[in-house]
């Protein structure tokens, strides 16, 4: 047993956690911004998939990785704007529209991918991001190679967490987002446009979801497959609740989920072969369900979440 444990807990394990956590952190922060403004974005799964596809395609055609990232981010913003149009401007059901955005985006991603690449026996690859060791820091024993020898998108995620907290808690715009998510009427009577603020928050959220998609197809797998997102968007929605709509806690939740996911990957590979691998695959999701059941009892959602705002109501 100790041999198994030793095999699991090594430097590579820590690095894997960080890598798995990165797209989840982007997606979770994105969903959090949207929900803090009062808009549940169930389009997240599809937005990540479509962004993964457009980013991959742009890189594949142009050869530029950063152009691919930009295209993925723009894709996320566009789909965010679509969701905001339905939910914030038109005040339609957030559940229905979110699922609609996911179905539409997924279908569009498959369709465009087939249109551009045709049906190939071996899916096309790109030369994805390479790890970028940070001088000095990456020489720290254990922690250095795991944390500071990563893709540049990983560093972006690390910076995005404090930045998101700063924007949300310290800037007038962040205050508007929180107010719009708690009591839109109060924001409106203070001269803050509820609809514009919701648009901005959902579009920013979409940009972050786009980054999550870009990471998957351009750093983690270096290819686009139809299963590239495989439920990570749905997990992010749970992690937002788990993280109580706070950037730091949400990122922590992403890290915890990544830990369980990395653990099950290692367990699959570690000679516990008599257990079917599907059992290990279930672990992170069982963890999510248990964690949600425990944590969400005390979680208080933004008061105006799911509630459309209309001005001249009489």
């Amino acid at each position, binding site marked *: 047993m100790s041999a198994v444990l030793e095999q699991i807990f090594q430097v590579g394990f820590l690095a894997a956690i960080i890598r798995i956590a990165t797209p989840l952190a982007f997606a979770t922060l994105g969903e959090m911004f949207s929900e803090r403004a009062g808009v549940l974005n169930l389009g997240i799964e599809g937005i990540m998939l479509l962004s993964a596809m457009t980013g991959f395609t742009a890189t594949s055609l142009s050869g530029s990785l950063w152009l691919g990232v930009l295209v993925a981010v723009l894709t996320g913003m566009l789909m965010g704007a679509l969701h905001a149009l339905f939910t914030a401007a038109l005040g339609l059901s957030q559940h229905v529209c979110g699922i609609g955005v996911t179905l539409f985006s997924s279908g569009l991603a498959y369709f465009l991918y087939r249109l551009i690449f045709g049906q190939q026996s071996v899916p096309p690859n790109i030369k994805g991001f390479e790890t970028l060791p940070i001088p000095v820091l990456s020489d720290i024993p254990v922690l250095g190679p795991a944390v500071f020898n990563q893709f540049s998108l990983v560093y972006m995620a690390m910076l995005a967490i404090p930045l998101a907290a700063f924007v949300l808690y310290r800037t007038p715009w*962040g*205050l508007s987002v929180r*107010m719009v998510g708690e*009591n839109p009427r109060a924001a409106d009577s203070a001269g*803050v446009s509820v609809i514009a603020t919701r648009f901005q928050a959902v579009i920013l959220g979409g940009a972050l979801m786009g980054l999550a998609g870009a990471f998957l197809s351009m750093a983690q797998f270096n290819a686009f497959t139809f299963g590239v997102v495989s439920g990570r968007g749905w997990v992010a929605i749970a992690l937002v609740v788990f993280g109580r709509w706070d950037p730091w806690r949400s990122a922590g939740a992403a890290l915890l989920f990544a830990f369980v996911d990395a653990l099950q990957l290692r367990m699959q590979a570690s000679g516990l072969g008599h257990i079917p691998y599907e059992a290990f695959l279930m672990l992170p999701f069982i963890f999510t369900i248990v964690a949600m059941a425990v944590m969400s009892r005390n979680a208080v959602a933004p008061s105006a979440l799911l509630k459309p705002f209309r001005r*001249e109501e*009489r």
Partner: protein
Amino acid sequence: MPTPAPLIEMRGITKSFGAVKANEAVDLSVAPGEILGLLGENGAGKTTLMNVLFGAYAPDAGEILIQGKPVRITSSADALAAGIGMVHQHFHLAPRLTVLENLLIGIPGKAGRIDRAGGLARLAEIGRQHGLTLDPDLAVSALSVGEQQRLEIVKALFRGARLLILDEPTAVLAPTEVDGLFSALRSMAAQGLGIIFISHKLNEVRALTHRCTVLRHGRVAGRVDDPANTTSAAMAQLMCGHEIVPPARGASTPGADVLTLDGISTSQHSGTALRGVSLAVRAGEILGIAGVSGNGQRALAEVISGVRAPDAGQMTIAGQNVSRFSPREVQALGLGRIPEDRMTTGLVTNLPLADSMVLPRIGTAAFSAKGLLKPDAIRAFAEAQIKAYDIRCPGPMTRAGALSGGNLQKALLARELAFDPKVLIVSQPTRGLDIGAARFIHEKFLDMRAKGCGIIVIGEDLEELLVLCDRIAVMYEGRIVGTLDSADATIARLGLMMTGAEGHS
């Protein structure tokens, strides 16, 4: 005293919603340092007029002048920029954000960041000027209702309001808090602010305002230049267009106890718990429960109606121990209940009115048989009540939420009284209703009293309780601090007991 130029003037404001003229050629003006009372029954157009002034509605005709210059106000942002602040009846605050965050919303930051230091300085300055102090880092949910209202006023001043509109500000306050509000308002007026004070309560209007404008059916029905020396009856007549005589509560000879509570205690579940409450209501008697809201009234109403089981103590209806009875069981014994919140615990707002009117008795033989509803019986019952109580609505299948407050209250009353309750418990029976509707409700209570029903009225409006009740018990922190015969009770004495001072019965 020379009249200064008006701070704000509304000329010929007309606003229609479909065929309904909510405002028609309304003129109104407020001078600096003046407190103007805006009076009118529900639906008279006060709220519409103020929404026009605050930019929520665009008027169909008419103009608004600020210090003699015409302005166009099309949004609340315009109104704020023009120096108009509004304290709505339902506060526009985010409970989970702090006091300071609620103040700083919509205010540009400094170098991209929230200007915390500037906000604190401004808050302290307003505190000094008007005696309105608040802890900036407390979450709004931790504030009392009075403090939340203070925050709303501070919010308006924070934005540089020179005209403050208050929509029925005293409806949510205890008598002591009302005094505090009035002295703050007087201080603001003394410093040159204009104030529009909207209220139903004529004694408050007479005590506070310098001048009144009275609206009726969307038009200006009259103006009162010296409210302090005008009788309430005269003002009420302006509002209603006819004389209002308060219902006379004749002598009654109460019978045996119909409902008793003996040492009832509850656990702290939500709100204040009850701590050994004992009281009795006799047949043909109205017992008032006075107290600042949040002192256990909700728990009391819930225990009596069977929604919450007491931890200790005994409750009886007509001599039978009902301490652990369910709502349906106490109802079957003849308890009628009109809850405090019409919209959430009274009716199902998205269902037809008829369904809401039979909901508590849906399982009885009158409305269902063999597990199936009797839609015709339900409809017929609702139609009969709509007629008997003059509930203004298109019909029994109207969505309940579409009715006005007064009509909803009539519907709730009809629903309970149709079954001749032995005991009736009502909370805040006339909150938000106008004089006419309140008068109707009061008459019905007195009718029931004459028929031998024991009625408990939980309320905050002491004048109402004094008119209506035979005895008044005062609640404070989950206890009954004393019970007075209404002949011995005065507002001053009840007000003192509401702060916890012991009374003598």
